């Protein structure tokens, strides 16, 4: 099996789905001749032509709205936000139109909105965001955040095949840093199912996307230096949350850290901690704690970005605190 990167896995997923299903098409800014700023869609224009790889004007509302209309008619649009930060421009259409279409009007809207999210790349405040929290609050949407190349491919395919709108947040820091041997052809990661990235017995780190890798690194250090056995749960899907997987792990380890890259206040970790508190109260030997970014817009300078974002050392320190509680 060939080893491919997280980015190639997404491209392969798109490619295979477009080969498989003529209803699948792509629309976004500069996804054609350019292949997008990160080349995720490179080669797709040549293979599938201008009608199925559509370079749009700079109009996130038009991209999302047009995708919704086409989806109502049975097509399977995949929208690219050039940087996921700009999904904010389509916030009204996504939360009020797309998310509610099935419920209020019985309209099916099978569409995907994908794009590069996340920091650790010196992108500054508008090219580094993690928009999960902005959409967690929206019944009707699904949200997936792959951490591995396998899940990048498996989730983009599952998202395209899903009958409902799916937000697919890929992490630009992982694009070329994460590689994996993957079979060509169908690799499907079911939406709504978390993954135990590392087995452990003493405490659980619940996380997703780029932080999964930092958690794994922290877990190894804790094993080595403290003999503490950390389980790492990669949620993969944030909406709907895999409560069962969280509960199983927390009831086993009795100590839990919820970690994400995004800022703390109003972040997704709050919802997860609340659920743990509701579902595992009697099993908790220590308060569920959160590791998240500091509550500021993400600054540009390396020293500042590194300070604001959670690092491996932070996860280690927080786990030690929990283990010692």
């Amino acid at each position, binding site marked *: 099996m060939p080893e491919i990167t997280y980015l190639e896995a997404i491209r392969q997923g798109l490619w295979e789905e477009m080969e498989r299903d003529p209803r699948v*098409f792509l629309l976004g800014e500069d996804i054609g001749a350019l292949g997008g700023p990160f080349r995720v869609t490179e080669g797709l224009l040549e293979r599938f032509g201008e*009608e*199925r790889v*559509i370079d*749009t*004007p700079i*109009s*996130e*509302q*038009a991209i*999302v*709205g*047009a*995708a*919704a*209309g*086409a*989806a*109502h*008619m*049975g*097509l399977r*649009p995949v929208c690219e936000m050039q940087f996921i930060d700009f999904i904010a421009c389509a916030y*009204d*259409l996504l939360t*009020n*139109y797309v998310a*509610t279409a*099935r*419920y*209020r*009007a*019985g*309209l*099916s809207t099978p569409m995907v909105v994908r794009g590069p999210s996340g920091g650790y790349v010196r992108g500054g405040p508008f090219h580094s965001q993690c928009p999960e929290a902005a959409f967690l609050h929206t*019944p*009707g949407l*699904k949200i997936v955040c792959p951490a591995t190349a396998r899940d990048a491919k498996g989730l983009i395919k599952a998202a395209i095949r899903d*009958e*409902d709108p799916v937000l697919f947040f890929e992490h630009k820091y992982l694009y070329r840093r994460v590689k994996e041997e993957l079979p060509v052809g169908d690799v499907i990661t079911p939406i709504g199912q978390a993954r135990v990235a590392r087995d452990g017995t003493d405490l659980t780190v619940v996380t997703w996307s780029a932080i999964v890798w930092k958690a794994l690194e922290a877990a190894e250090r804790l094993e080595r230096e403290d003999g503490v056995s950390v389980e790492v749960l990669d949620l993969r899907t944030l909406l*709907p949350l895999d409560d069962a997987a969280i509960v199983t792990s927390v009831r086993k380890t009795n100590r839990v850290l919820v970690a994400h890259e995004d800022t703390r206040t109003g972040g997704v970790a709050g919802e997860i901690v609340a659920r743990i508190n509701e579902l595992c109260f009697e099993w908790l030997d220590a308060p569920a704690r959160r590791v998240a970014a500091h509550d500021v817009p993400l600054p540009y300078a390396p020293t500042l970005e590194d300070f604001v974002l959670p690092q491996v050392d932070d996860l280690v320190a927080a786990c030690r605190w929990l283990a010692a509680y």
Partner: protein
Amino acid sequence: MSASLSTAPLPARLTRQQLLELYYWMRLTRSLEERLVALHRQGKVVGGLFRSLGQEADAVGSAYALEAGDILSPLIRNLGSMLVKGATPLEVLRQYMARAQSPTAGRELNIHFNDLARGFLGQVSALGAMVPVMAGIALSFKMTRQPRVGLVYVGDGAMSTGAFHEGINFAAVRRLPLVVICENNGYAYSTPTRLQTAAATLVDKAPGYGIPGVRADGNDVVATYQTTREAVDRARAGEGPTLVELVTYRRKGHAEHDDQRYVPPGEIAEWERRDPIDHHRRRLLESGWATAAEVADVEARVEAELDQALARCLDEPFPDPATALPGVYADPPAAPIEWYRTLRTPDA
């Protein structure tokens, strides 16, 4: 024999039958709204009531220009367009009264409902949003090589939204089969058009999108039909979008509760004299395109149909509370019931 009646030539390649049909749809629109006003006074309409009094011609005439298979997206004042496309008075009454059997099972209000098979896509409240969505529907027609056309209505006010701009621009660049109808009825709620845009006319926006813009008298159902029809034909021929401005007037308030304090005296009366239904009725008779009997028959038919529809739904129940949960996603089937609610029933 009816041939001998004809004094004026038939306009816009319409048949006598069709001219009478246009009258029927306008009449049906107005009478249905009058029934709704009565129901509103009796407290039977759950939410607000929005009238299209004086705008029946622009709604009916424009929708009448579409073929089966074409899809339109209405505004709150396009009841007439919905009816022409096959929405029934019974559905509309049930929607306004939030009945269990309404097309949205009580989830959405007034004419916010849709049936893509019949050719109408219900709007959402956010103005402008339906323009990009309808551009997407037109895109699907083009991609699948179907000779179908999309039509979307925007108000003079909604044209100020970013969604309108992005949607019509996208449709223009892709040369999509989309007709954009601007209903210029003089007001957006209380805001006169001159506070909405500094443009001399709303069709002045068309060149900025590289598409043709045409204006017509929105109170003349035939002119409305003819102008829209040309735009629809252009779209179907693959020549892309047209912006059609239909000039009309909103004689009632934004909604029933609106006292129109902001309207200059005399303005409404002025437009009453240009009532689109009276005008078409007079023309039918004076031009000899219909007999008094035919017209009277249409009017009777309308009232009878409405009596019937009303009788059917007046005593229908509201939806069963628990039906609020299913259908957020194709799967899982239903949103979970909240834990605290299960505590309320003693046996839980």
